[in-house]
């Protein structure tokens, strides 16, 4: 499991625009870099990020090797109801990780 830092507000007022921020430990190997032996290191990146909340995907992104190592993403959503925010990262070599955070909406 890759180390992940996630910032989702624990609570919010209905209708508030909240910011979700994520940082995940991943080399994002570009596939263009030679190793010490001069061989190109095969690409190994996170290709897709998805965030779901209150019954729908509210944000998703396709990443290229131009995304920095340890990818950082920040985006917003409207607080609608109490529940779970689900975030999934998928990538090369079968990389798949899902994290959830609760949110209380009043």
């Amino acid at each position, binding site marked *: 499991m890759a180390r992940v830092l996630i910032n989702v507000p624990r609570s919010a007022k209905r209708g508030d*625009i909240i910011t979700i921020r994520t940082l995940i430990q991943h080399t994002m190997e570009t596939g263009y870099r030679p190793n010490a032996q001069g061989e190109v290191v095969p690409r190994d990146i996170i290709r897709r990020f998805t965030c779901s909340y209150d019954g729908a995907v509210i944000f998703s992104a396709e990443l290229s090797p131009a995304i920095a190592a340890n990818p950082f993403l*920040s985006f917003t959503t409207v607080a609608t109801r109490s529940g779970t925010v689900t975030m999934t990262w998928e990538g090369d070599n079968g990389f798949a990780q899902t994290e959830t955070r609760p949110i209380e909406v009043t």
Partner: protein
Amino acid sequence: MIVPTRRLLLAAPALLLLPRQADATPEAMAEAVRGFTGGAPVTPGRVALDISPLVENGNTVPLSVIVESPMTEEDHVRAIAVFNERNPQPHVITAQLGPRAGRALLSTHIRLATSQTLLAVAALSDGSFWSDRAQVVVTLAACIEG
């Protein structure tokens, strides 16, 4: 011989459009943008691409895109894409969003191989496309390992 020369000149732009390995070009970027817009016209405006004009290390460069939009069911940003012209590949990131985002905003950290122009394009719910571009100078560190 005049005719062959002219033929060669006419062929030149087409040659530049051919995909090149491990090297994006302004033409490759334009092609990638066409892939995102489906060839629809892109108008400068409404989009603010925020990135430092002078970058001290291209490995991790903070970048934000904000699009002016009410983000309602009727009028919102569907997607934001970022392109570059001098990395090995022209595509950086494409994000899908909608009215539930509240704001049309995306922040991330990107890689820049060298000094170049970046382009952010927003796809709106009415089918229009808007953009902003930024020139970035990447300085090279004097003391690097390796």
